[in-house]
């Protein structure tokens, strides 16, 4: 189910939004409209869903309308046109009280520039959302404490925001949003001020949190690596418009246009692509009923020099090589059993390529078996991995991931 549904959402900043809307209908660009009317198009007819429990990442260059869009989602900014539904409730027709309740209970926001209250201590900043709901002092202090621990800021309760570094302040902002325990987290470049190490930690923390509590997270970032790491789906914006929405793989493998291509150009693909993306069908023989002759025939047909061996239950046993098999044939043996190499590298479908590169160089002639429940699901060979990493089209030999 869609947690948030957005349709034709448009925001024009300036005095003549009507005129600007007309021009948008004529598919004029943001720059043309600015020249003609002096109005800035913040967001242009955005339409998308955010599913319950997913991390939805919004990406785009500076000024592409990310912050404006996220503010339209909790109506900090009123749209010029279009609608937002949260849990099927239309945000634009909500009266003030309902809107307030929605903001209190359903969605919290983490701000790009932190938005901490300088005259309040860290603890009382984190408590703010609970305080205005009238929660008792001890209870909210407890929750604030938990949230601060979660972001690794225990011990800073009584300091003031100005006494903390930018990264720490950002984490206070996150703790403040978490303390409210909302269904939806709106995070506007929430990790941008963190140094790389803490940033990684916080990303992991967020993924954990999302797994544990099934939050719906709308996450804005500049950083493609972050987007790929966090996003179940990624939406790319340009000049206020949505250019592409898709899973990280889709964005990387089928970029919609040059703009998206530019974005993904210098991404470290080895951290994004998984074995599932590049694996091929495995040739196997069943050692319980097939002997050296069948093995050799199959290798010849597939033009390969080794073949994986499974047993009757289709469990992976090992691999046999062509030269050993031909020797067995000469010796007149009926089973390949004695030449099976049982010490073979294996991996799983979800492993990122970066983590199997080592296996591929180490026994470079031997493909890596992709295993699930001890059964072989496919193989990964050096060639396809290298091809995938270099950005060329990946042929999947009939197996879809």
């Amino acid at each position, binding site marked *: 189910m869609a947690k948030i549904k957005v349709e034709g959402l448009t925001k024009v900043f300036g005095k003549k939004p009507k005129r600007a809307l007309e021009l948008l209908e004529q598919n004029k660009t943001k720059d043309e409209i600015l020249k003609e009317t002096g109005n800035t198009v913040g967001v242009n007819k955005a339409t998308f869903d955010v599913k319950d429990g997913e991390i939805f990442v919004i990406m785009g260059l500076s000024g592409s309308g990310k912050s404006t869009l996220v503010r339209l989602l*909790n109506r*900090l900014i009123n749209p010029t046109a279009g609608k937002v539904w949260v849990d099927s409730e239309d945000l634009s027709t909500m009266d003030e009280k309902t809107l307030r309740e*929605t903001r209190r209970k359903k969605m*919290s*926001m983490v*701000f790009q520039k932190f*938005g901490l*209250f300088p*005259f309040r201590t860290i603890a009382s900043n984190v408590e703010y959302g609970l305080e205005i709901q009238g929660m008792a002092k001890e209870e909210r202090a407890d929750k604030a404490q938990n949230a601060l621990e979660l972001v690794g800021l225990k011990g800073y309760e009584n300091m003031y925001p100005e006494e903390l570094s930018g990264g720490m302040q950002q984490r206070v902002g996150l703790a403040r949003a978490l303390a409210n325990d909302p269904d939806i987290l709106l995070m506007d470049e929430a990790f941008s001020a963190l140094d790389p190490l803490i940033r990684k930690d916080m990303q992991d923390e967020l993924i954990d949190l999302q797994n544990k509590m099934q939050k719906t997270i709308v996450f804005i970032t500049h950083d493609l690596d972050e987007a790929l790491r966090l996003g179940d789906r990624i939406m790319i914006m340009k000049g206020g418009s949505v250019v592409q929405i898709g899973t990280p793989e889709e964005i990387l493998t089928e970029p919609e246009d040059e703009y998206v291509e530019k974005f993904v150009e210098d991404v470290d693909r080895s951290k994004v692509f998984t074995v599932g993306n590049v694996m091929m069908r495995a040739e196997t023989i069943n050692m319980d009923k097939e002997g050296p002759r069948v093995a050799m025939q199959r290798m010849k047909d597939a033009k390969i020099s080794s073949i994986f061996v499974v047993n009757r239950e289709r469990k992976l046993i090992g691999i046999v090589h062509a030269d050993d098999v031909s020797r067995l044939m000469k010796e007149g043996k009926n089973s390949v059993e004695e030449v099976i190499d049982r010490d073979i590298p294996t991996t799983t479908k979800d492993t990122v390529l970066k983590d199997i590169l080592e296996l591929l160089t180490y026994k470079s002639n031997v493909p890596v078996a992709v295993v699930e429940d001890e059964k072989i699901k496919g193989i990964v060979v050096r060639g396809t991995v290298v091809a995938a990493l270099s950005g060329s089209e990946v042929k999947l030999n009939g197996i879809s991931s």
Partner: protein
Amino acid sequence: MEFLPRLPLADWIDAFVDWLKNADFIFDGLTSFIDVILTGLAGAIGILPSWILIIAFTALTFWFAGRKVGLAAFVLIGLLLLDNMGYWEDMVLTLAIVLTAAIISVVVGVPLGIWMAKKQAVEGTLRPVLDFMQTMPAFVYLIPAVAFFGIGEVPGVVASVIFAMPPTIRLTNLGIRQVSTEMIEAADAFGSTAMQKLFKVQLPMAKTTIMAGVNQTIMLSLSMVVIASMIGAGGLGTAVYYAVGRNDVGGGFEAGFAIVILAIILDRLTQSFSEGKD
């Protein structure tokens, strides 16, 4: 321009003031209200022996105004001198008038400033009125004050309030308008009501600016209280006023000096409230 008949502005204002006098009961009510505050304050301050107050003032300025030994010493010596010159009672009365005027200014001015910050139309109307109030020569206010409130301390308080309130209104307005969109968005995003936003975010954020306004209001009240001695408001101003009348240079300076001491104490104390964190 002589072909135009002279506009009888003075007559019109007189007529307006006469008409306003019909609302006598309001002014009587206000008079007794102000009188209660004033006598209450004067009584409360005056009941304490001067040495206790001297120590208290010295300690207060020391603690609140940056723990400056020099300033504290100045206050101590100044107040002792003031007492020694025989201006203590006058000082107490002046202080009471100033504080009364300041309290009324804050109680009326801060909400007005808030209203002004929230409503563009209110700002549009109030701004020229405030300009007018501040540019009018101070003692012009004495005339309507006398007309409605007679003579004595109460019209002195009224004239002070009119003259001294604008900075509090203005700076409250400014302070609230200056609160960044970021803070407002944070307050809104968590579902604050308008009142919660005002009391938990806007006013605390604007506190320093508002206190700067209150500081100005207090200083302006003090200057007005001196002028108000012309309409019978007692205190240090009267001493100056008499000295001027009698061409008594020495006496005038003594009284003037007493005012300066009071002014410095009030200024430093209120400034410290606007600078301190809590």
